[in-house]
């Protein structure tokens, strides 16, 4: 999906992703969830559009 989707596309994304992870979204909560998902995906675009070298590993380090 596009990172700055149209509202109807965002609603479909919320419905489908929530269904796939078994997360019920009550009708009265859905507009707020769509609003905040849109805000988060707008922030996400700032991250994913930024080119990173291949050798940059994720920050968390696991010490066995």
């Amino acid at each position: 999906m596009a990172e700055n989707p149209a509202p109807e596309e965002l609603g479909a994304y919320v419905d489908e992703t929530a269904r796939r992870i078994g997360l019920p979204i009550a009708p009265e909560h859905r507009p707020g969830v769509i609003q905040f998902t849109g805000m988060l995906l707008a922030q996400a675009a700032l991250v994913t559009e930024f080119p990173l070298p291949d050798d940059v590993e994720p920050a968390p380090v696991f010490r066995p």
Partner: protein
Amino acid sequence: MSAAMPRADYVASDGVGLTAAIRARRVSARAVTEAALAQIATRGPAVNAFTTVLAERARVDADRVDAALAAGRDAGPLAGLPFAVKDLFDVAGITTLAGSKINRDRPPAERDAHAVAALRHAGAVLVGALNMDEYAYGFTTENAHYGPVRNPHDPTRVAGGSSGGSGAAVGAGLVPLALGSDTNGSVRVPAALCGAFGLKPTYGRVSRAGSALFAGSFDHVGALGRSVRDVTAAFDVMQGPDPEDPVSATRPAEPCLSMLGDGVEGLRIAVLDGHFARGGEPEAFAAVAQVAAALGVSRRVAIPEAHRARAAAMVITASEGANVHLADLKRRPQDFDPLTRDRFLAGALVPAAVYVQAQRFRAWYRGRVAELFGEVDVLLAPTTPCPAPRIGQERILLDGVEVMVRPNLGVYTQPLSFIGLPVLSVPVTAPGSMPLGVQLIGAPFREAHVLRVGALLEAKGVAAAAVSA
């Protein structure tokens, strides 16, 4: 029962000063504890800072300090110092609410969190637990379950968050010291808006064992206090390795209290430009300019891509926070605070590709900031873009742009906790105005640098805690 110390005396000193008087037996720990309990009873309801008051337990602890001193024993470096903790730290015998209704169903904690135990072991007296944003997800502490925390300097305004009860308890003069947690700014924002000093140490420097997880990549334990030495004294007894916290740093503790008088000679200090110099009200930048002038600093430097760091912090926080609470989000979403619920639900839907890239960006950004710290020791930036907003306020005009006020309170704090830098927020209050904060930002594990700068600003009278009249 011992008579309570009068309020005027109680708030005239910082916490370390009260401890010194107790250790010298000029006043009893019991009288100071009674003063704290009296302030909580009389002035506490107006700010709504406390969710639990532990009066009898505090009296027992205070009497133990007095008995030790009477017997000639050392009662600890924080002997008799009253403190309170954000209600996400475990306190043995009471349920850790973390600002939620859901956690009321949980059993009482079996033992104190590491930070609480460290302070009590040093002789400090725990007087209660403090209100907060539900599960620490907010900057305003307008908690639907326990009511909004009110700013001690104007009850129509927020105290900041998510450690809002901690900020209000210090700013209202209820306690000289409070513990908070800081994931995106939750110690620094309420400290700034309530007129307190707020220290967020380096990530991993103070164990989080026994404190409720929010977003583990960024969760820090911190302290709010009436003075630089108050937050430093608390930091010194809490810091150091702890095998019970998986991100605890292994390097040995480096106490800072004895270094506070060392001054700033030799420290390279600069004002942060770019992201940290736009998007705020003029008085936020005026506070930074005042601090810079007092330090004789005119140099300006920029951190590259700080706005993306904030964005990455937001998606990682949402994703990790939602995952901690996913079972409850599925089962009982109606029991969440409306101000956090929809954001947690949205956080559960963040794609893995975004989360992983945000964590890779975090590593890249850490490298760029490390390069900057090769040429500078301490950075200055506003803590918040504006003074405390009104309770219930949704939007604010910043730099000519109308934005949502709640997320924007963290615009200058998030890019710093994102990579775990130590930061001291010092309170700066213009005459007739609400308090603001200035962040003193150090390289990792260089708490001593920012605390030395803070102590000098305090000695010059530029930074001072604002305790409400």
